């Protein structure tokens, strides 16, 4: 049962095109599965998903990623499951932070040109979803579809 459970999607830098569409796709999938979904990111990353979903059909709650880290550390909020999107070392570092501060089951969604090398550098506890996707979202979408929610 996932009713009432909370899911977090953490966006990395939005410079790789597949991120925004996969965040919207996964948020919808989690919503359909009964999760209360929050999408966190930088101001630009949040603006990109909001612009693509003007009536909040898919993205219902958003948060500033740094502010959210503070709220989790101060135990004001937490999640049951979290997905950190990453295509760079900085994204991986944010994923490691969420894995350390939150009790959520952590997933690392690794994409971009250097997806395999970046995935190999992850040494914190997380289930990895890896696809060398930059413009075509389907390799990543297929991997996400295999995750049992």
């Amino acid at each position, binding site marked *: 049962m996932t009713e009432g459970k909370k899911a977090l999607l953490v966006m990395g830098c939005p*410079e790789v095109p597949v991120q925004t569409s996969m965040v919207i796709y996964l948020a919808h999938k989690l919503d359909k599965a009964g999760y209360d979904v929050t999408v966190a990111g930088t101001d630009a990353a949040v603006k990109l998903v909001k612009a693509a979903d003007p009536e909040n059909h898919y993205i219902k709650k958003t948060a500033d990623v740094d502010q959210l880290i503070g709220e989790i550390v101060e135990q004001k909020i937490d999640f049951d499951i979290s997905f950190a999107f990453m295509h760079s070392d900085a994204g991986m570092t944010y994923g490691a932070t969420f894995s350390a501060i939150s009790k959520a089951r952590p997933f690392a969604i690794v994409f971009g040109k250097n997806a395999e090398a970046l995935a190999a550098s992850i040494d914190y506890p997380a289930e990895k979803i890896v696809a060398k996707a930059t413009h075509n979202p389907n390799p990543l979408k297929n991997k996400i579809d295999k995750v049992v929610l």
Partner: protein
Amino acid sequence: MSCIEQMKYKLYLERTSFKDAREYIEKNSEEVYYVDPGYKIFKDYYIIGVPPVAMGVRGKEMLFTYVKPCHGTFVMGIDSEEEIARLRENEGEKIKKSLKKGGPKEKAEAMPASFGDMWKK
């Protein structure tokens, strides 16, 4: 934006990897302390990092990592005797906790009774 960006800081490394930033702090500090991700400094900044997160002390300056999603990791230095004192205090607390968890007693029990026992392992 964190208050750190409005403070008087020095940048020692820019747009690097977290691992390289950690190594820089370890090699260039007089004292190195390890904190958990989420350790709070300067009222509103929660350290982002891959454990173990190194924090350095060099004179009156505290060296730490600052991560921005689109720009990578930076090593920053800010003069703050108050934050340095908190780091040292935090380390003292960690030692106290490890002793309470049965550090010396458990260690003593785990020690081999003789050199002969050492080779049995």
